């Protein structure tokens, strides 16, 4: 009886997988992703990238959750966050994850960049992936900065205030930058709306496809490239050369003497 149910379940599973495979090719795609050969060395170093992805996914999830309560107006922004922190179930956790994973994200992104730099993983043919990575790190920095301002509390507001003031020192276009970021010539409701639009819609919409391109280019060229992935082969090459060299000396030593 159990054997028959098992056979039937397997059959249904197989049929469902086949059905999806014919229509979308998802099974072979998954197989392709899962069984891709990756370097054995540096397994733990290479977790920095996936940790970044994980933290960004956390940002997207908790960000969407926070929007269930957050109100982007000057009068209610602070109050709605206060509500999240004190009244909403697990509000402390959801906002805590959004805040702390953003901080951890900055650290992990920095380490990821350093790892890429010191292993020379940006060299041909991976230059474009480095460029995309730099764009991503800039987007993450601006996201962190704008997220700070959305709180509309003293800390976040003054940080944004200083940011606008720095923007107003941009050569030639400073005053335009300032009025664009302020949404007028004074700080007010338009300023918060702009920060909200940039943090919640504009930058995530840019970030998501760029992460896709980053991953696509990674899969296309693989993680290999660092000499560190050829340690054994290099060692063997060195050994063989040494033997040849000794052989050469031995020959050379023998001939002039005799």
């Amino acid at each position: 009886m159990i054997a028959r149910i098992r056979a039937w379940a397997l059959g249904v599973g197989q049929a469902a997988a086949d059905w999806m495979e014919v229509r979308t090719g998802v099974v072979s795609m998954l197989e392709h992703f899962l069984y891709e050969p990756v370097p054995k060395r540096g397994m733990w170093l290479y977790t920095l990238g996936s940790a970044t992805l994980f933290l960004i996914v956390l940002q997207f999830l908790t960000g969407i959750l926070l929007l269930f309560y957050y109100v982007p107006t000057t009068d209610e922004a602070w109050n709605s966050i206060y509500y999240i922190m004190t009244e909403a179930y697990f509000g402390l956790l959801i906002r805590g994850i959004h805040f702390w994973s953003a901080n951890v994200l900055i650290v992990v992104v920095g380490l990821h960049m350093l790892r890429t730099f010191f292993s020379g993983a940006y060299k041909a043919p991976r230059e474009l992936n480095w460029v995309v990575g730099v764009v991503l790190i800039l987007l993450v920095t601006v996201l962190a900065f704008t997220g700070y301002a959305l709180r509309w509390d003293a800390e976040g507001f003054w940080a944004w205030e200083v940011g606008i003031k720095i923007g107003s020192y941009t050569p030639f276009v400073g005053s335009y930058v300032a009025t664009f970021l302020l949404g007028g010539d004074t700080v007010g409701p338009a300023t918060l709306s702009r920060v909200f639009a940039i943090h919640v819609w504009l930058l995530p919409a840019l970030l998501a496809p760029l992460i896709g391109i980053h991953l696509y280019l990674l899969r296309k060229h693989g993680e290999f490239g660092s000499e560190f992935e050829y340690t054994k082969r290099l060692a063997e090459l060195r050994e063989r050369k040494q033997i040849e060299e000794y052989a050469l000396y031995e020959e050379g030593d023998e001939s002039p003497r005799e």
Partner: protein
Amino acid sequence: MAELQKDPVTRAQFIVMGTVGTLVGAVLTIPPVAFMLSPTIKTNFLGQSDVPDDWHELGSVFEVPSGTPKLYRVEFPQNQTYNGEDPLLGKGTIMNAVLVSWMDGEIPSALENASQGGLSASQIEELTSQLNVMSNHCAHLGCPVRWFPDRDEFLCPCHGGIYDINGGLIGGPPPQGLYYYAFEIREDGGIYVKHEFTNGEPWVV
């Protein structure tokens, strides 16, 4: 995968692609850019302001002490997005901290023999030249400066800008002294300010 089919482009198709493409592109770019930049266009090119051009009472010249500045808070009406002059919109305000001091901290002689009742035109003129009405936003990056009585200086907590009691720059990275409000002194000694600055644009005030 099937072979890619490469048909030649006809003259008519080329013209349609060019004109229709340009039109679609224009409709999809020009209005969005103007939409986003409308505050910039209104402020920088049309000279409009979010704060109406009115005088607001700050206090009286008789309250301003010698040797130390006095801090006032003044609420200006502000029209921005959902707050505006239109009766269907809400009413918004913007609160400013204004520092008022006498030139070098000395009460001018014109004030000593003036009565609360009324100031003459010449007295008003002298007092106006002796009064500093300043924004408390540092001219460097806009942090709120504060008065340190033991040093007789304003200090900015952000990057250490130092100003004297007249708002003049003493040291630190700020490019200039504190921003001065446009103000007037009326016959009863009242100080009135506008949300306007006579030396530069502080932006985030």
